[in-house]
């Protein structure tokens, strides 16, 4: 089967997962005791019975649960995620598209940060096993795995924000935002610079946990590969240590790392909720918190679905990367 067919099948397989997500979220929402209409109309308008009835009618809240779910499903299939209660009038998809780029940028940057650090760190600590470099790497990764990401954020804010005043500590202007609304930036290029400066601290905070976890896995994967038969063989045939590390061992040692990165995406999304709160970045993470607090059903459904989509795209991408590196998988054809 070619790469294309494999991707097609993999995406096909994710539909039940998306379906499952929407059912679980819908069930959770409807278990919420408080009445969304009350929050929506606010105390003064609560007085008139018809106002409540009209609001319920408008948002179709009076039909039984499963009907509402089906309507929502039909609408989603046609790309309409419905209208938000809390931001009355604004369509859910617009709200999400407005907040999505910030989270995507943050999560993407945190992965770049964590992978570019953890893979070399893992390899070096495996190559120089039980020497100084190995112990340092292991201590860093142990602490990295055990530190709450938002606390790192706070510490970074204190050190780099207040004391050293090197880096901005809140908000994240988008690179395409117009320069006028971005402080300290005239040209579009300077806006981009501002984005990068604002991105540094949150990326480190969000990426540390993943960097530490991937380092540990990269190290144990490398150790395992280094005492396998084929490494023994190339050593016996006079291949130099550096080539063994760079070529023969490295490619095999990436396999467990790729799988773990796929699984960590949902962790990263979860983490972005915390980091966006610490650095008050208006991303999808904070949006979902406000949506849940406001019992804004369509917004909750929409954001959770997007979280699901990002995760699934991530897993499919890592699957394909895995199939690309490991010929034995060969896209599900006969191996």
């Amino acid at each position: 089967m070619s790469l294309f067919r494999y991707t097609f099948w993999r995406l096909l397989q994710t539909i039940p997962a998306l379906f499952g997500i929407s059912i679980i979220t819908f069930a959770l929402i409807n278990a919420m005791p408080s009445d969304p209409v009350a929050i929506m109309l606010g105390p003064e308008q609560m007085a008139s019975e018809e106002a409540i009835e009209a609001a319920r009618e408008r948002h179709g809240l009076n039909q039984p649960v499963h009907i509402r779910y089906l309507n929502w499903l039909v609408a989603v299939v046609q790309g309409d995620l419905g209208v938000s209660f809390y931001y009355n009038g604004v369509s859910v998809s617009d709200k999400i598209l407005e907040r999505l780029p910030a989270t995507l940028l943050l999560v993407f940057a945190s992965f770049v940060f964590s992978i570019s650090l953890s893979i070399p760190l893992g390899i070096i600590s495996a190559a120089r096993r039980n020497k100084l470099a190995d112990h340092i790497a292991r201590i860093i990764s142990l602490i990295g795995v055990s530190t709450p990401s938002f606390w790192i954020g706070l510490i970074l804010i204190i050190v780099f924000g207040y004391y050293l005043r090197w880096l901005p500590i809140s908000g994240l202007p988008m690179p395409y935002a117009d320069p006028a609304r971005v402080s300290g930036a005239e040209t579009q290029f300077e806006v981009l610079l501002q984005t990068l400066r604002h991105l540094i601290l949150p990326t480190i905070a969000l990426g540390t946990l993943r960097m530490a976890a991937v380092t540990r896995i990269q190290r144990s994967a490398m150790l395992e590969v280094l005492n396998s038969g084929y490494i023994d063989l190339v050593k016996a045939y006079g291949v130099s240590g550096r080539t063994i590390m760079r070529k023969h061992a490295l490619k095999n040692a990436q396999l467990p790392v790729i799988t773990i990165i796929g699984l960590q995406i949902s962790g990263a999304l979860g983490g972005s909720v915390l980091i966006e709160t610490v650095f008050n970045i208006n991303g999808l993470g904070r949006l979902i918190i406000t949506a849940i607090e406001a019992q804004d059903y369509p917004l909750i459904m929409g954001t959770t679905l997007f979280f699901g989509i990002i995760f699934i795209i991530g897993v499919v991408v890592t699957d394909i990367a895995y199939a690309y590196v490991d010929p034995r998988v060969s896209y599900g054809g006969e191996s």
Partner: protein
Amino acid sequence: MASESKDTIDSRPGELFVPAEEEYSVDNPDEMDNSEDVGIKYTILQIKEDTTARIGLYIVSIIMIVAIYATIDAQLLDYAIAERFWYHPEFDPDSPEANLPPIGITNAYGEGTVAHPLGTDHRGRDILARLVYGSRVSIQAGVFATFIGMAGGIIIGSVAGYYGGRIDDLLMRGIETLYAIPFLVLIIAFMSAVGRDLVIAMVAVSILTTPVFARLIRSEVLSVREMAYVEAARASGLRDYQIILRHVIPNSFASVVVQATLQIGSIILLIAGLSFLGFGAQEPTPDWGAMLADSRGFLLPNPWFSVWPGLAILITVVAFNIVGDGLRDALDPYIDNSQKEDEGRI
């Protein structure tokens, strides 16, 4: 009846020959020579030798003692000891005589003095005391949620792993979908549905830890199921549940214990995150995450206020992780630890 001592061919089949009493004495269980025991004693022995694991073990036990003390005082004696010696956690500072504990006074955002070695928070409450009592929340949540998650995970995992086929697919598909939604978001949605309270947070976390254990136990059971001694048990006529209880669970338990210790660490991180977002412990219950949330407002005036709770979390989780790694090497040096890494959920 077989005359001599041998099961000769002509001995009536089905009759099992049992040698006479004096030929083979029955050892009474207590003086068995379990020098090469593979049970708990042996593993603790192993950990003793591994220095880092030993340090981890000491820290964990100190924290456990502190947490148990805090639980007794907070839940049973309703902070009686705290009031006599420390302060009352619910005390409202606005009242004029903020009756600070007899061991000393300081200003509202005071630096550390003997009275308050780690200073006080924005409401004048002693940070050290709140750290001590805050440990209750983290340890309770960590241990409680891990055990429930483990129990649920063992049941689901061993059934899915041992029987395979459709049940396996069904359970694993369900767990995969749970994994798709970020852990934190799922709990927050669950909490807002059921209500924001620490106990509910713990319940939510333990329900959602079950898939982590289910996946791990399923893969362990799958590998144990291929072992010849399971096939031997089936060939000698043991029923399925006997096989699971006698062979499958004990032999797949080693990595479950390791995962449990590592899981306590990641749950402490998770609960701290929840409280930070206001979904965990509510004011005024002392909780590390909540303290960090409060400290956000005072990063400039009193940075130390946010350092201490973070450090407390870090040290506790590091301790659990060290013990987990030590257990992994002690319990089964052959565990291929590349897959046993947890997935760093937060």
